């Protein structure tokens, strides 16, 4: 009632800072119900303060608890928002279905809006001088060499290179590729750099 339940959500957020947990619908619903209950109690007591003035203090204390619950819920949402942003940068604009499942419907909507906003921004880059935008999810590390040797980790299929060549990325196949054209696949875990 007084912030005990909501702190479990906060601890959930703190426990796994680098992984996405499923959205805790059930707990959110319980806490919102609790809040409605506290609010109802407050309404009743507020009406009774003319008879018992000290009830007013009780109302204020409950209100503090309501505010605490709200703060925690928003902080929980916010910490997930930050993780969802990372998903956009790391997986791209299309989430694998098993990741998608971890988000609530509203969160997925937020993800799409974030993704669209980001895409709009990236498309605007260099537009004045005839660019069709710049993908900021690339060039994440200082370049070291133009070509690297990679191992394919999954059966990915065809990859068309800038020069028009098409290669087949099959599990356990090795390739020598332009760094610029395989960095995204490496980030997504399709390829692995061999050193």
């Amino acid at each position, binding site marked *: 009632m007084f912030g005990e339940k909501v702190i479990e959500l906060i601890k959930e957020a703190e426990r796994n800072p680098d992984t996405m947990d499923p959205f805790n619908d059930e707990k*959110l619903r319980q806490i*919102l119900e609790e*809040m*409605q209950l*506290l*609010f109802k109690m407050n309404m009743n007591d507020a009406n009774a303060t003319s008879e018992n003035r000290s009830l007013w203090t009780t109302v204020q204390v409950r209100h503090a608890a*309501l*505010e605490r*619950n*709200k703060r925690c*819920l*928003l902080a929980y*949402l916010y910490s997930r*928002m930050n993780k969802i*942003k990372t998903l956009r940068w790391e997986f791209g604009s299309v989430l694998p279905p098993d990741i998608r499942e971890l988000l*609530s419907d*509203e*969160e997925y*909507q*937020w993800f799409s*809006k*974030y993704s669209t*906003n*980001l895409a*709009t*921004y990236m498309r*605007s*880059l*260099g537009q*004045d*001088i*005839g*660019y069709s935008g*710049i993908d*900021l999810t*690339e*060039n*994440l*590390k*200082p*370049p070291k060499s*133009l070509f690297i040797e990679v191992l394919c980790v999954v059966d990915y299929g065809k990859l068309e290179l800038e*020069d028009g060549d098409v290669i087949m990325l099959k599990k356990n196949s090795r390739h020598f590729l332009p*760094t*610029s054209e395989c960095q995204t696949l490496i980030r997504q875990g399709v390829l692995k750099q061999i050193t």
Partner: protein
Amino acid sequence: MDFNDQIESSGDEEEITAEAVLKTLYNAWQNERLSPEILPHCNEMVECMLGQIQHMERNINKLPKTDLRASIHKMELSRIKYIICNYLRARLCKIEKHCIPIINEERQRIESGTNYLTPSEYKYAQEYLLNMEGHFKSVVLDKVPGNMQTFEMNKMAIYPNLQSHVFLKANETVNGVVLDLPGEQDEEIDLEEGSQHILLYKPVADLVKSGKVQLI
């Protein structure tokens, strides 16, 4: 083949070489990465470099694939692309985190023509905040009791910590920088050209923006 491109600038301004622009962009990138707050944008420099890249890429395509010069140019271009992407990402990161104070301050700066954000960045910030507000509302705020449903901008604002410590190198001598230290009398220090220090960001924020010191 002529790779010797100078940037043509209009009017009576001095002609700045691409080399000089690149150097400035390096410094701006480093400062942006290391300062707690967002710094004035360097869009002209970014666009200038993008133009150079574009031009160079066209020329590279005329070279045989295996030409040594083509690889050298490609390598340089990927280095420049790296800085540009990294620089813009660092800015987006701050814009997202501090969107509320940034938008508020930017509104005033736009009025006085001293904006820090590019128009696209400003648009991005506004849209980001709108989406955040929408999300908070639909999941939590719309479902809490009626008297607490507002999105309280002041509370949600996350300010950059200007009271954080940074490392810097003085590009020129600056005398009498006042360190505002708690529980002590204000201490003044001199930053001699070339000297390096760790100190509070706030008293040197303007020196960073004017290029008198470089964050390291």
